[in-house]
């Protein structure tokens, strides 16, 4: 039996198979226990109070920042900006660094595998600044070749936005290589870590990422808290994103001077409860350890892909090697629309995602309207994988086919 299962109240007393972890993960009881403890012992508005509760709330909030910084290998806590999620982190960079540094005729390079959240902000910048949005194409299995990277990076490339792990293919992109080559061209690189930070150790300094974004809710944290990491010199030069309280030094009738990092980018009352929950989630993940997480996911993914490959009429997308899926298995059943597949599996208490996975350009490139996706995490089990695979072999029957 999976030893982590019992940490999650949502799995108690039912046989639901939750295979939609790339969308959001489940949360262990301790995450909300920590949030409740904050609420019950020191809730006050952080960062400005002159009394004990507010000081304590500030400490807890900044402690969360420290934990998040250590989690991804940031040199300093002030390089961690708390946002609502990875989407907001990317938008922050687009609206501030992007609008200030990208101009007419410049190029923004992103991959065809990006989530909409790493496409639309750059479409906006490109449109407003008359810049060009260029796509890194991939091979059918999701590989981005060195030749492709080298041919698409030019002297006009100002920014590269790259998903660390594709939420459809599950493939880990060669971010270190992309970053090294982009830096040679003088470009800045934003890594969308929404699908990587939950599954593998991240070291933003080793990677040499200029910006790194991730969400708390995909790594057992609460919804509504995410992180933007940035290199200090970049963050310091950037104009603020949102303005208002908590992010100023002096305000006169006509002007204001902004607070130091990271507060310059955290206007208004912050999500301290969320940050405390994120910290609890990160500590939980660290206790389990990425070695265990990766090993468990790899074993489950290998089993799942093997079972699906032996099931007639099933196509599995992405890499041959299950260890290159990051727990994400995207597939289709011949003749069955993914929404119908998800609907009938729902009646079997199996929860998967179906549709375009917020990656419509990729779906179009793959030549499919939509796909079904099972995505695993360390709390899933082999029994679940087997039950899932058994049911997959019955789907065509439920949808009216004779075989």
């Amino acid at each position, binding site marked *: 039996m999976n030893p982590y299962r019992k940490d999650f109240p949502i799995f108690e007393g039912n046989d639901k198979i939750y295979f939609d972890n790339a969308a959001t993960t489940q949360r262990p009881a301790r995450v909300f226990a920590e949030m409740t403890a904050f609420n019950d012992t020191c809730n006050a508005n952080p960062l400005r109070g002159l009394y004990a509760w507010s000081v304590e709330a500030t400490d807890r909030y900044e402690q969360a920042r420290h934990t998040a910084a250590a989690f991804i290998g940031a040199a300093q806590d002030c390089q961690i900006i708390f946002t609502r999620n990875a989407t907001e982190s990317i938008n922050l960079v687009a609206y501030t660094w992007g609008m200030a540094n990208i101009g007419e005729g410049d190029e923004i390079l992103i991959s065809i595998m990006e989530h909409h959240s790493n496409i639309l902000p750059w479409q906006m910048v490109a449109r407003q600044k008359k810049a060009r949005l260029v796509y890194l194409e991939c091979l059918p299995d999701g590989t981005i070749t060195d030749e492709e990277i080298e041919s698409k990076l030019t002297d006009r490339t100002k920014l590269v936005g790259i998903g660390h792990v594709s939420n459809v293919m599950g493939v880990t992109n060669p971010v270190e290589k992309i970053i090294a080559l982009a830096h040679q061209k003088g470009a800045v690189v934003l890594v969308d870590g929404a699908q990587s930070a939950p599954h593998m150790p991240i070291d933003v300094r080793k990677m040499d990422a200029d910006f790194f974004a991730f969400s708390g809710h995909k790594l057992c944290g609460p919804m509504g808290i995410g992180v933007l990491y940035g290199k200090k010199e970049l963050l310091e030069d950037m104009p603020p994103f949102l303005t208002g309280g908590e992010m100023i030094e002096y305000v006169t009738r006509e002007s204001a001077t902004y607070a130091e990092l990271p507060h310059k980018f955290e206007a208004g009352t912050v999500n301290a409860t969320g940050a405390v929950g994120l910290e609890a989630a990160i500590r939980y993940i660290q206790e389990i350890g990425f070695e265990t997480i990766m090993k468990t996911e790899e074993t489950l993914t290998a089993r799942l892909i093997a079972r699906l490959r032996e099931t007639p009429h099933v196509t599995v997308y992405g890499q041959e090697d299950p260890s290159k899926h990051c727990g994400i298995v995207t597939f289709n059943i011949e003749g069955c629309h993914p*929404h*119908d597949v998800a609907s009938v599996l729902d*009646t079997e208490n199996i929860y998967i995602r179906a549709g*375009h996975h917020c990656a419509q350009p990729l779906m179009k490139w793959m030549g499919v309207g*939509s796909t079904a996706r099972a995505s695993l995490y360390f709390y899933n089990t082999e029994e679940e994988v087997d039950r899932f695979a058994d049911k997959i072999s019955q789907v065509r029957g439920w949808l*009216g086919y004779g075989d």
Partner: protein
Amino acid sequence: MEIKSLYREIVNEHNLYPGHKYDLENPTMVLQGINPSCGDDINLQLRIEDDIITDASFNGSGCAISQASADMMIDLIIGKRKEEALRLAETFMGMIKGTATAGQIESLEEAAALQDISHMPARVKCAVLGWRTMRQMLEEINK
């Protein structure tokens, strides 16, 4: 009705063996209906003579519910006056929203089988795609 029974008893038949999924030779109106978020896509074709829908068909791709619903709709509207087809569309929408009476729902004949889609919010737009497209076409004539 549980969704598996819904598929078994009605949707699969119309999805896998549709009676009206082909191109009309001489349609008087053609309109594409799309659900962008799921990729359901139908091309609805009507032949209307003297305000009567004398023939209808569709083509397209999408989930079983979207395709089967369009096929059942066409079964129902061929030979009807356009006002009557519009009234049936209102009834279908009402059934999905849970506001139609039992008597009204009966007028939908086989399409009434999709009543339980009202409990499956994610699938509502699939079921109404054909009806929504037809309504748009017929309202266009009235403009």
